[in-house]
């Protein structure tokens, strides 16, 4: 039943146009949610009684960290469906996700460091969460580098997909081992980058920001997915007519 519903989206042309329809809506929603969320987080959300105004970094750091993990998971699911059910489009969406996930991982790291400096007195601390975020960045960079190393993009997608799957199996082990390692060397930890008990007037701006970032990610995935589909199907008639039509429009 699900397959019947999904079937048209296995066609690259249909999914290209579907992503094209989704794109402007996601962009608009992302813009609305993010502007509301950012103004709320920066101007109206109360300062934390312990951490003061540095708590405003939380509204960037936590959504970025959550999305960085979520995007990796999404990439692995896409890779799995491309390997198991031979869905070529899943490949394209996995390839679209990797740079986005890497950017959010980078943001989570930078904001974590900038939050850590006033709280711990040092830019970097081998805190469990920051360390596993750093390793996640390495995993993302590996997937991107492998994807770039292949000339043939469909081969690149398959190879990067296998790596993403291996990574996603390893990720919980890495996370667990890093947490365990961190508790073992407690002396190094000054204090945890924790969520202090979050009150409602902190939770709502956080939720709005998170939803905004999620729409933003979806819009970006749609955009990059469209480019991936185009390059992979560049010899198909529908792509040729589509590009030719757009060329003519520009010429006029």
């Amino acid at each position, binding site marked *: 039943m699900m397959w019947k519903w999904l079937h048209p989206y296995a066609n690259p042309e249909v999914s290209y146009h579907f992503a094209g329809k989704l794109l402007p809506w996601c962009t608009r929603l992302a813009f609305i949610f993010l502007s509301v969320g950012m103004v709320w987080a920066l101007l109206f959300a109360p300062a934390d009684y312990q951490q003061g105004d540095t708590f405003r970094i939380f509204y960037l750091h936590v959504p970025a960290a959550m999305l960085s993990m979520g995007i990796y998971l999404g990439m692995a699911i896409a890779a799995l469906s491309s390997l198991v059910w031979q869905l070529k489009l899943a490949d394209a969406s996995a390839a679209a996700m990797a740079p986005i996930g890497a950017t959010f991982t980078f943001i989570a790291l930078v904001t974590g460091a900038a939050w850590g400096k006033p709280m711990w007195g040092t830019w970097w601390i081998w805190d469990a969460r920051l360390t596993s975020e750093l390793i996640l960045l*390495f995993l993302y960079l590996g997937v991107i580098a*492998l994807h770039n*190393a292949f000339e043939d993009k469909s*081969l690149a997608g398959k*190879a990067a997909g296998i*790596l993403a799957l*291996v*990574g996603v199996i390893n990720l919980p*082990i890495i996370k667990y*081992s890093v947490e365990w390692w961190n508790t073992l060397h407690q002396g190094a930890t000054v204090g945890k980058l924790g969520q202090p008990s979050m009150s409602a007037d902190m939770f709502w701006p956080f939720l709005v920001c998170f939803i905004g970032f999620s729409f933003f990610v979806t819009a970006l995935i749609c955009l990059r997915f469209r480019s991936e589909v185009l390059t992979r199907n560049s010899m198909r008639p529908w792509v040729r007519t589509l590009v030719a039509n757009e060329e003519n429009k520009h010429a006029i």
Partner: protein
Amino acid sequence: MTPVSYRAAFSLIVKRDLMIAFRHRDDIINPLLFFIIVVTLFPLGIGPESSTLSRIAPGIIWVAALLATLLSLDRLFKSDHLDGSLEQMLLSPQPIFILVLAKIVAHWLLTGLPLILIAPLLAVLLHLHESSYGALMFTLLLGTPILSLLGAIGVALTVGIKKGGVLLSLLVLPLYIPVLIFATSAIDSAAMNLPYNGQLAIIAAIFFASLTLAPFAVSAALKVSTN
């Protein structure tokens, strides 16, 4: 022609790889020399104070072992890919799982085993705590096969790429992190005369998980690479 049994195919490939390796002895010796040199560099860089050295010895030995394994991984599939015998193997009627496992076992015999044999010597150089030798050997015994297994995935993915060497380290090293953490902490616990069964059990679990899963990933990756 009678079909070759799984066990015969397995031992055939292991023997073949060992024979090829013994003809090019440099391939076995160079990673070992690298292992020794890296380990000797640390006292020169940090200072010969024995308390510092014995504190950091487990980490140094394990990191050097990771890098030495990484250096040796290239020959796992590269020459077979270049002369076309890899594709022949993939086309043979035996399941790829067995062929891949045989190649990994041969690789471990050629790099992991020598590393284990030479590690106590280096531990002496680094003033490793006397009670940690057992832990060092056990973790290397359980851990180096994991390095070969996970490394094989990386090699299989990059075997078709011309400049795969640097890329390989980027792909494989993050996957080695859990082994590094648990192995060094087992050795540290042993130095403090604490039980280290827990860490060993986790390394064993990772070993068995990678033993069952990695050959599948390797064969999928080889199919992509030889395409």
